């Protein structure tokens, strides 16, 4: 269970801007939640708070009963292994093959070679890239790149997947493929939180939708999930 309790974050430069303003939220295990809102509404900030890239200025974020603020810095990598992340710009290493991009995520966590040799082809097969192990990112289509990024996010068998505008750089067909893949992952029990500004994507999913504007949740549609203004 993920809980946001009165969470406020501030961007403090020349002028102080509130990115999130007293956000309260509960996400149950296994849910598929879409967060929709315009650019700068605070969608990505919510995801970054969950991976402890940033900390809230006020309020608490609780994951499985543990306040994230109480996690010592040394344990943050362990938290991040529980959470897979997918981004609009894929964040793939251009000088590594599909296999190496996923293997890299295991290597930096200390996995041994045998484990990597078994797990990486398996996960690439699951996302439909079983025949692209030796392809470099520039040899893959946008949709394939995003599926590779999802494979990397899944490699630690995370309980939560955070997807920040995963269809932002994709055409309609590839966007639909990526959404289907995320739904499949969710059906297997993984909590998925998707941040997007794309209403078509949200409507295609048909699950819970949180609407966020100027740092506040303005609508929480648990039923039906169709986002219609």
């Amino acid at each position: 269970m993920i809980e946001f309790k009165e969470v406020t974050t501030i961007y403090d430069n020349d002028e102080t801007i509130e990115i999130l303003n007293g956000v309260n939220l509960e996400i149950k295990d296994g849910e598929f939640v879409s967060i929709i809102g315009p650019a700068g509404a605070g969608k990505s900030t919510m995801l970054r708070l969950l991976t402890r890239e940033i900390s809230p200025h006020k309020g608490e974020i609780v994951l499985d009963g543990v306040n994230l603020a109480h996690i010592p810095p040394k344990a943050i990598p362990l938290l991040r292994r529980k959470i897979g992340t997918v981004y609009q710009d894929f964040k793939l290493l251009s000088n590594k093959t599909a296999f190496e991009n996923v293997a890299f995520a295991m290597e930096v966590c200390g996995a041994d070679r045998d484990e990597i040799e078994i797990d990486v082809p398996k996960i690439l097969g699951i996302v439909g890239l079983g025949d692209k192990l030796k392809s470099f990112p520039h040899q893959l289509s946008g949709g394939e790149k995003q599926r590779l990024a999802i494979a990397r996010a899944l490699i630690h068998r995370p309980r939560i997947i955070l997807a920040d505008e995963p269809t932002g750089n994709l055409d309609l067909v590839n966007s639909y493929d990526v959404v289907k893949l995320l739904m499949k992952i969710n059906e297997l029990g993984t909590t998925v939180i998707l941040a997007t500004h794309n209403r078509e994507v949200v409507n295609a999913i048909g699950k819970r939708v949180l609407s966020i504007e100027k740092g506040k949740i303005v609508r929480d549609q648990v039923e039906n999930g169709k986002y219609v203004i």
Partner: protein
Amino acid sequence: MKESFRRIFDVGWTNFKRNSYLSMGTTGVMVLVLVLFSGLMSLNYLASQVVSGLEEKVDVSVYFKNDASEEEIAKVKSDLESLGTVKNVEYVSKDQALNEFKERHAGDTLVQDSLAELDENPLQASLNVKAEDSAQYASIVTFLEGNKFRSLVDKINFYENEQVIARVLSISGGLQNWGFLLTMALALIAILVTFNTVRLTIYSQKQEIEIMRLVGGSNWHIKAPYLVEGGMYGALAAGIVTVIFYPVAFFISPKIESLMPGVSLISYFASNIIQFIFLLFFIGILLGVTSSFVAIRRFLKI
């Protein structure tokens, strides 16, 4: 664990190769530091040889009054020998002193004639005292100037040698201090250059590091390759200095020996080859790892 270490060394080596120009620059500065360090060691060795050569030549002579008996002088000699600071004491009797003087001036008829004119031996009996360490002459002189021997001793020539001893000690101390300061200054520059190299490496691999952080890479797995990279700069520099230093020492050693007979630079470094190479590698790797550590702490916030 073994796999982990293998990966850390692989990544460190890849970083090292990838930034070849930066790596060469950093290694170059470290080579300079280590060359200076080796030069300082050589200078220290040469200075210690000069000092010990001079110290061998320096002693304190105690001249006794003509009425001092041989027994009294022998008592002073044994008292001096019982001091822990005295290396040896040599007795020169009046007759022995005269003979040595005559021998020294054998060709000088004026001196020989003058001595023949004299009724008695004008020279005094003396003790030549050598200290274990040149810094201990002052305390030996104080001992001789004490009440116990005041009635026997005519003069002590230490004060004539004191300035030479002090000068030798100050030159050798100065060489060590300035050399040390210079080495420290260059080491600081090497740390700054390595620091900036690693910082640039970190900057050029920003995306890789960001991904490592996002997928839950531990601090150790992210940071350790940069420490390895720093260590590699140091190890390579130490290797280069070893390869340069020994042939140079071999080449200049005979020239030094012609100036300072009995002082062989190459035999000194050849007999201490293991310790010297170990020290070079230790200092090089320590310099590299330290500067990488500082850069990582500052620029890699996990």
